[in-house]
């Protein structure tokens, strides 16, 4: 599978480094790979590996969501085909994929994916350190003795 750094198998999608893999049951591995790529294109962070985006969208792999996912991805692939690509995952530049997403920005499918990513992606505690965010300090007695006023350049 080209376009993204994702490997799509018969029942799973995996990171190209094979550091992680996710089995799918109700949506196809290619659909899941498309969701992961969409998630990255909506909230692109170079320091965040695909695995975290995969976690953020794996909740769509349910019998209940499968129909909406299929329809939404059909629309996004059709938009890619209208621009001369085989499908969304085959669009090599992020800017061109973003153009496709913008064309469907008002759709319920896009807004659902985007809205759920806010917590699905950014509320993963494993992601916080990738932004430098340290989170709670209570267990170490607060930041009082852990740098609350350590700025040295101002």
């Amino acid at each position, binding site marked *: 599978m080209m376009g993204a750094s994702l490997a799509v198998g018969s029942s799973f999608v995996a990171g190209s480094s094979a550091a992680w893999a996710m089995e799918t049951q109700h949506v196809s591995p290619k659909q899941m790979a498309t969701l992961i790529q969409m998630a990255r294109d909506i*909230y692109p*962070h170079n320091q965040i590996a695909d695995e975290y985006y995969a976690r953020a969208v794996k909740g769509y792999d349910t019998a209940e969501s499968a129909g909406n996912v299929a329809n939404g991805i059909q629309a996004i692939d059709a938009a890619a085909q209208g621009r001369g690509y085989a499908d969304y995952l085959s669009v090599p530049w992020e800017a061109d994929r973003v153009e496709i997403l913008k064309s469907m920005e008002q759709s319920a499918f896009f807004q659902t994916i985007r809205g759920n990513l*806010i917590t699905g992606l950014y*509320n993963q505690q494993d992601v916080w350190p990738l932004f430098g965010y340290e989170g*709670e300090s209570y267990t170490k*007695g*607060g930041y*009082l003795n852990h740098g609350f006023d350590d700025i040295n350049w101002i």
Partner: protein
Amino acid sequence: MTAKFELNDDSVVVIIGTGAGGGTLANELAQKGINVVALEAGGRHLPQDYQNDEWASFGQISWLDSRTTSGDWRVAKDFAGLPSWIVKAVGGSTVHWAGASLRFQEHEFKTKTVYGDVLGANLLDWPIGLSELEPYYDLAEKKLGVTRTNGIPGLPGNNNYKVFEAGAKKVGYKDIHTGRMAINSEPRDGRPACQQTGFCFQGCKFGAKWSTAYTEIPNGEATGHLEVREHAHVLRIEHDKNGRVNGVLYADKDGNQHLQKARIVSVAGNSIESPRLLLNSASSMFPEGLANSSGQVGRNYMRHMTASVYAAFDRPVRMWRGTTMAGIVTDESKHDPSRGFVGGFEFETLSLGIPFMAAFLNPGAWGREFTSALDSYENMAGMWLVGEDMPQETNRVTLNHDVKDQYGLPSPNVHFDDHPNDTAMRAYAWKKGAEIYEAAGATRTYPTPPYPSTHNLGTNRMSAKPSDGVVNKWGQSHDIANLFVSDGSQFTTGAAENPTLTIVALAIRQADFIAEQMTTKAI
């Protein structure tokens, strides 16, 4: 010893809500030996339960009952079901407040006189002035242990404050400090000093910040004159054939309904639920709702002019470390119409963690512009802009009969349109806030729109004349002598300052009045 009163005990004062207004009033009355039943819709969460995790805490303590929104404010688009971010728990929104404790300025009690006619604004002078409230501000500051009052030192400045202070000085602002905060800068009142934990909005796990949850409420309970019923969600206030309120119907944790008899009822459920309850208590005698002969119940909803400025720098700030609201610049809080608007505003530092920053920096935004801002998170500083907004009759809380809550009652709809004065003030404040950070070396600034409202005000406003408002200068309803309002909904206008200290001062004053009225058998 916690008291226990009978449902048919009609000698008690029933207080609905246990936040800054209700919790303070409950304790003040109990200290005077007056028996009080406080009904709290939420449960009791204490510091050991608070979660220093933004979304987990949000789910734990927020008021999440169904609500709807309308109007041109951006909150109605971005957070249609969440007009406000307030707390449902013993302690109310004093669990998550920042702690900023500022007195109103003298002119802010008489805006109609000082600002004159502002087109579209329903301005009115308060029926009290600063001088009448000053003795109660003194008592409130002592109760809360406000820093920079009564010889209590200010809090130390954190990283976010240091950037803010440096920029503000370069811009030429003069009145810059770490705030008047109801957060202990040294151990006081059995509570420790601030440990700079962060997460002030999620409940202070050290209890360094004043909250009625672990000050007023247990102090009142210790007198034997206060019973707090948790998970007691009030459905309606009842009255007798003479039009005096005589009881409160509530649902308990299991949904069973009870009627608590009352001699006096105080409403303190915050500025959305308080008018909603009065409206939902309509009867054949009061078809427009209780205390609503003026038609002003639910109107003049104010939420403060708010906005934020975040800024990215070329080096780390780590704004999340330490006190959330760590400092203030008050130079712009004056009334100076030459700026293009009436009233004033404050700059106050603020920080959000990554989860909330993603949700609130620019709701609905996506793509590289947005994510490159989050990528600078470690290098970010942040401030909140809070100023006086204009009361408008059409900004109001109404009953939405198409949407019912979990008890089958109409949900509140919150309608809000920005007044041109609010919009002009916000534009100016965004510009000045950005200038502060640019002076400190910011490489990029982000004018962030308002969050769901934390300061909800004005929907049962205080007025000298019964035709202009809902309550008199004691918070006593004009129409029903034994019905009081004890929260921020009684504010006639909003002022530039954070409202809690004024809510507390009014509650202490109201307790004196209620006690005197009970003694003289006036009510």
